């Protein structure tokens, strides 16, 4: 399902974090959002997720996301992997992935407290599916390990897997390889490629690692001071004079 941003604007006081940002993300593609620090990349994610109220319109397929609370947007199939790891530290990897099934499951306080059969069935069914996703992301060996005991790269991987476990239509990845070792980076890139190929979801990627972005993205939107300064395939964006100026400070 296509994700479209149309004239999305967001201000913090006098600062325009986003200024009429528009771009489309096609299903089955990796769409990178890049730009210098403070260009509005994370604000863009927060706008899509409904963390801040924004002007303009964010649509998923024919559904309007603007104005919906974050949990309702999650229900429509937008999942996010956070840059600064936002997992439950003391909980196991399995529990952390199971949280992502929240919008796909029903069990409430009463039925869970009473231990109803349908709650146990639901739990079993979703645990099985989460175990598959853990295998897909290479986490099956540590399913019962508390997240706090994993390395940084490991926790980053759980963050990615959790977003995947929400069965997203749109997957938002906020700097998924930041701070990773070379080896971990290669693995994550392989995972993202695999996700695009196997699940056909629309992946939106914020990342600073330029060679990685150029090699991975199907399309790139470049932001600077909250505005879109370039949008297109990597080859197009790489040569774009505005982009060169924003990154290199060159006068052309």
């Amino acid at each position, binding site marked *: 399902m296509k994700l479209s941003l149309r004239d999305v604007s967001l201000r913090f006081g006098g600062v325009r974090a986003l200024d009429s940002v528009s771009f489309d993300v096609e299903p089955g593609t990796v769409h990178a959002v890049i730009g210098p620090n403070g260009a509005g990349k994370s604000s863009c994610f927060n706008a899509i997720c409904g963390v801040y109220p924004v002007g303009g319109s964010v649509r998923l397929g024919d559904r309007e996301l603007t104005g919906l609370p974050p949990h309702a947007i999650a229900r429509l199939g937008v999942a996010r992997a956070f840059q600064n790891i936002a997992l439950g530290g003391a909980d196991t990897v399995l529990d952390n992935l199971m949280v992502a099934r929240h919008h796909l499951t029903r069990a409430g306080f009463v039925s869970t407290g009473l231990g109803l059969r349908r709650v146990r069935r639901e739990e079993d069914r979703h645990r099985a599916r989460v175990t598959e996703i853990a295998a897909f992301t290479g986490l099956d060996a540590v399913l019962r390990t508390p997240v706090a005991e*994993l390395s940084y790269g490991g926790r980053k991987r759980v963050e990615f897997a959790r977003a995947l476990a929400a069965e997203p239509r749109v997957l938002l990845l906020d700097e998924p390889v930041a701070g990773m070792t070379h080896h971990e980076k290669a693995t994550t890139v392989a995972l993202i490629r695999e996700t695009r190929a196997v699940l056909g979801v629309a992946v939106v990627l914020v990342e600073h690692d330029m060679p990685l972005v150029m090699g991975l993205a199907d399309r790139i939107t470049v932001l600077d001071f909250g505005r879109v300064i370039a949008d297109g395939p990597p080859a197009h964006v790489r040569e774009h004079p505005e982009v060169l100026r924003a990154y290199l400070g060159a006068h052309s």
Partner: protein
Amino acid sequence: MSRVMRTVGTVAALGVLVAMPFYLDAFWLQVGAFMMAAIIGAIGLTVLVGTAGQLSLAHAFFLAAGAYGYAFLAGEPGAGSAGTTLAGAGLPTPLAALLAVALAGGAGLAFSPVAGRLNGLYLGVASLGLVFLGQHVLFNARPVTGGFNGRSVPELSVFGFRLTGDEPELVLLGVPFGARERLWYVALACAVAGYVVAGRIVRGRPGRAMRLMRQNPIAAASMGVPLRRYRAGAFVLSAMYAGLAGILIALTARRIVPDYFGLVLSIEYLAMVVIGGLGSVRGAAVGAAFVTGLPLVLSHYGDDIGFLARPGEDGVDAATAVRMLYGAAIVAFVIGSAQQARKAQKARKGTPNAITITMDRARRALPGGARRRLQRQGR
């Protein structure tokens, strides 16, 4: 611990608890009933504070709602102490108990517009207001509460059989089964049910959602957890647990007075859940038993403990000594858990990267056809 060991342990512990009334005298049975009531209340609070991360100082208010709700709904109208006239609904007592739990839950629900919007310390301060409001009502709504002198609590009975009274007479294995013995089982049944239900909730879908909500609300919302609903839900659940605990306290004490349901009581419950380790259902039970049992036992044996002053004398009396003791217990717990955290951190630094699985291995780990299945089930 293996599953079998755990089952054996649970069965043994339950067996001991069931056998207690055959061996303990009335004093210890009463202490036990108070402990089990507190265990229920503390479990409710640990789910709210420890799992959902919502600080509440209003627990005394909801305990009072349960206790007075039961006393009013089950009580017959009549003359109270000091010339007051008491109102009472005169309902069958089990129904009154159910309604009193619902009443406490309803009070929690009525507060949920506040509980759903605030978190952490802010909610703590806002909930403080409920305690003062509650006590004001307890002192002044005399026909319902009996005012300063309180009101007596009707015994729980089913078809004429007193579950917390002496009628009809009952002797089991040569042991007379009076009010204290019967109350023990009522409290035990409630405590076990409360423990099991809370355990399931904490381990299940609501518990996972609440834990992530505590640690990172934005992440929880992004995973589809409606924050307001879950904050309010945790608050109502904890209020209902407090309501049930309040009923048991009322049944055990036989008379309830407003003074008891003050801020100190709320703080005692916070002490219970902190001593036991926030968010741990078992810990809350241990903390509750410790905080409730200790003052009762110390004042009972106060005469034998040399350094404790008798009531009215100068010096440290049992109640004060107990406060110091659980103050010390809280400090010990906090230092202990800080050390544990440091140890865990060291252990992490020592071990090599726990995940070194490459994409190839991940792909191999996928069972045959899993990729297709992944594709089919994904949207």
